[in-house]
């Protein structure tokens, strides 16, 4: 903590920061209004997969950056799971030194272009901004600015490849290529290790590729980062399931000394209600995978997808929002969210909920499906919905939804996407009987070192946390890399 504070103070007292602060008075800064993100019009964007947010212009970014008052105690930083030095990068933007701003992001985050787009800023950095906490005004648009700097760097073609220590010849394996794995791989490569990333699917990127749609996170944004890792010497093996294609034992024999499991929480949950296996009822993973990974909506793709005129999506998280907005883009006339709590409890990012509303998505809150009905071919045609009311708070602190008797209603739907959560991927734990797991199937790790019950196996991201966030997965990848480096240095000393 102290170390961090000293670092932040010394950074803040750099002459360029001092000068910038003097340029505009705090009063002026705090009187400016928050920038609006440029967006593609809702009626236009629902006809394609174009990215909804088109980014800030340089002028917009610099103006927004000047709202930040460069606080002596930047509370925003403690809201960021990887502790990005927020005022420093924001001030670099104000100054017009955009590549420098990107470098600041890269000090602690491997995928700033991704996080700027998908972090739940309203719960993290921006929730802890001085504007939110003290002034009760709209926070500095940290996420938009992060995206701006990262995009600027990507577009400049001058992606800074971090300095790489001399190769030490030690082989380490990374299981999974989601944000946890990619971050781990980058950090280990920096320290001189020979890193191989094993990925079960034919594409690299985990949820960033197969889950989050193009209109929210274009694949090219992720690919630029993957290219950078390749240039750093990271090897990728796709179509390789650790535990199936080869076991950890096999890989040890091939010289791998330690492993990081970033295998995610990819298993969809269903609700177990009558009729749930009818045709046309699918998990959000299946729906999104068909579209994002298999390109099912494109004419030259061999993968088909079922999508009706009335599409109902069950759930209120990011995955549900991505599914329902995808359905709209596939031509649904009625695309509905059915969520058992109220709007206030909805876990999706606020921006996505707002975008969904603009796109004509219907929200049925305090409602839950209890049975499905099918036509003679077994294809779902309608859903019985039960209304809920909110009772006492449950263990999670949220008010528990209670079914209201006699409130059932039948709603037509030819496609139903079930998006009620995911469980950890069991392949790695199943193949390692000595690996300690929780009753939910997540891998047990030391909270500081992320080391599992098997000393040479580290783990992080959703396989440890259950369904969490991109930035938490990245933070884990980074910490695990630091701990593994220590572990291997001691072991090989």
């Amino acid at each position: 903590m102290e170390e961090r504070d000293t670092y932040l103070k010394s950074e803040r007292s750099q002459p360029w920061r001092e000068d910038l602060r003097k340029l505009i008075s705090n009063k002026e800064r705090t009187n400016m209004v928050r920038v609006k993100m440029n967006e593609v019009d809702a009626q236009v964007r629902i006809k394609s997969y174009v990215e909804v947010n088109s980014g800030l212009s340089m002028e917009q970014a610099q103006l927004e950056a000047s709202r930040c008052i460069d606080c002596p105690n930047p509370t925003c930083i403690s809201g960021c799971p990887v502790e990005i030095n927020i005022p420093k990068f924001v001030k670099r933007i104000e100054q017009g030194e955009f590549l420098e701003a990107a470098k600041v992001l890269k000090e602690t985050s491997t995928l700033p272009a991704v996080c700027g787009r998908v972090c739940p800023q309203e719960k993290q950095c921006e929730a802890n901004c001085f504007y939110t906490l003290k002034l009760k005004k709209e926070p500095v648009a940290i996420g938009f600015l992060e995206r701006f700097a990262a995009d600027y760097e990507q577009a400049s073609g001058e992606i800074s490849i971090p300095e790489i220590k001399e190769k030490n010849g030690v082989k380490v394996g990374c299981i999974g290529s989601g944000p946890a794995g990619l971050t781990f791989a980058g950090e280990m490569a920096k320290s001189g290790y020979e890193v191989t990333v094993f990925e079960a699917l034919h594409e690299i990127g985990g949820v960033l590729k197969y889950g989050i749609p193009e209109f929210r996170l274009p694949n090219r944004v992720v690919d630029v980062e993957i290219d950078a890792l390749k240039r750093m010497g990271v090897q990728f093996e796709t179509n390789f399931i650790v535990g199936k294609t080869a076991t950890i034992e096999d890989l040890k024999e091939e010289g791998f000394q330690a492993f990081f499991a970033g295998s995610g929480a990819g298993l969809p949950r269903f609700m177990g209600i009558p009729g749930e296996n009818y045709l046309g009822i699918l998990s959000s993973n299946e729906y999104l995978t068909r579209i994002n990974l298999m390109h099912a909506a494109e004419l030259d793709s061999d993968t088909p997808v079922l999508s009706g005129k009335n599409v109902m999506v069950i759930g209120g998280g990011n995955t549900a929002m991505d599914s329902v907005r995808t359905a709209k883009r596939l031509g649904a006339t009625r695309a509905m969210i059915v969520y058992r709590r109220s709007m206030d409890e909805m876990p999706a990012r606020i921006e996505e909920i707002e975008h969904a509303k603009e796109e004509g998505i219907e929200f049925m809150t305090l409602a839950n499906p209890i049975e499905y009905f099918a036509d003679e071919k077994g294809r779902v045609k309608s859903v019985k919905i039960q209304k809920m009311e909110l009772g006492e708070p449950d263990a999670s602190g949220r008010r528990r939804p209670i079914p209201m008797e006699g409130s059932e209603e039948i709603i037509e739907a030819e496609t139903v996407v079930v998006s009620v959560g995911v469980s950890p991927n069991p392949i790695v734990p199943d193949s390692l009987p000595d690996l300690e797991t929780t009753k939910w199937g997540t891998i047990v790790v030391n909270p500081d070192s992320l080391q599992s019950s098997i000393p040479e196996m580290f783990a992080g991201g959703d396989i440890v946390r259950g369904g969490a966030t991109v930035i938490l997965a990245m933070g884990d990848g980074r910490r695990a890399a630091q701990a593994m480096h220590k572990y291997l240095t001691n072991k090989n000393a």
Partner: protein
Amino acid sequence: MYEILSKEFFSENVVKLVIHAPRIAKARRAGHFVILKIGEKGERFPLTIAGADRENGTITLVVQKVGVSSRKLVALEVGECITDLVGPLGQATHIEHKGTILACGGGVGVAPLLPIVEAYKKAGNRVITVIAARSKDLIILEDQIKEFSDELIVMTDDGSHGQKGLVTEGMEAAIAREKIDEAIIIGPAVMMKFAAMCTKKHNIPTMVSLNTIMVDGTGMCGACRITVAGKTKFVCVDGPEFDAHQVDFDEMLLRLNGYKEIEKAAESTYLNLNTDSCQIPS
């Protein structure tokens, strides 16, 4: 990468491929399958590993042309590569010494049956195998199956080879003659449904290997789900083998037809653009 080393036509529509895939060859056991994808925009589809050669690092697949993806695979020539191939997937068959095994294969289901028959035989069981198809030219792997079977019964719908009749008739004949300790059935879903009813009637513990529609094959999507004993199971990770008497075959049959119309349309487009009938050696 995954190069095709040899290609042999069993019939106009059924082809055996030997593919270079050393890691899979080493790791696979009877009952495992792989997922393939051909071309950048190809679909992911499953095929059972019919055999493997660890020394040479190869696996054998037997594929029947039914739609676009299987046709694209069969259209590949020796020396060409499969874009993506991942495995081995699923749970391996639990093979032990049981006594007398009744192994039943229908159509291209005989291919996945072969390694299982071989493994049961090697575990010291007496193996009676029934293979069935619509007509003579659809009977595959007869000689290979025979090598590991104590007795082989061949059934054809039209009587053009072996005995005339359905697979269940061959099964009934074997069951009438001697005590069967366990049965395994692999074939089209309808055939498995009726064959399972047959062994149920005789109280013979039975396994089936299910061929549902799949996408990822790693438990991620749920496309392959079925109901077994009232519970939802994922065929790719929990199976593909299940207790035949607990499977809801009617639901499975409905789910298999989920994409039929789209796929039929895709197939006729594909056939209009590609003539692949010229590949049968004369």
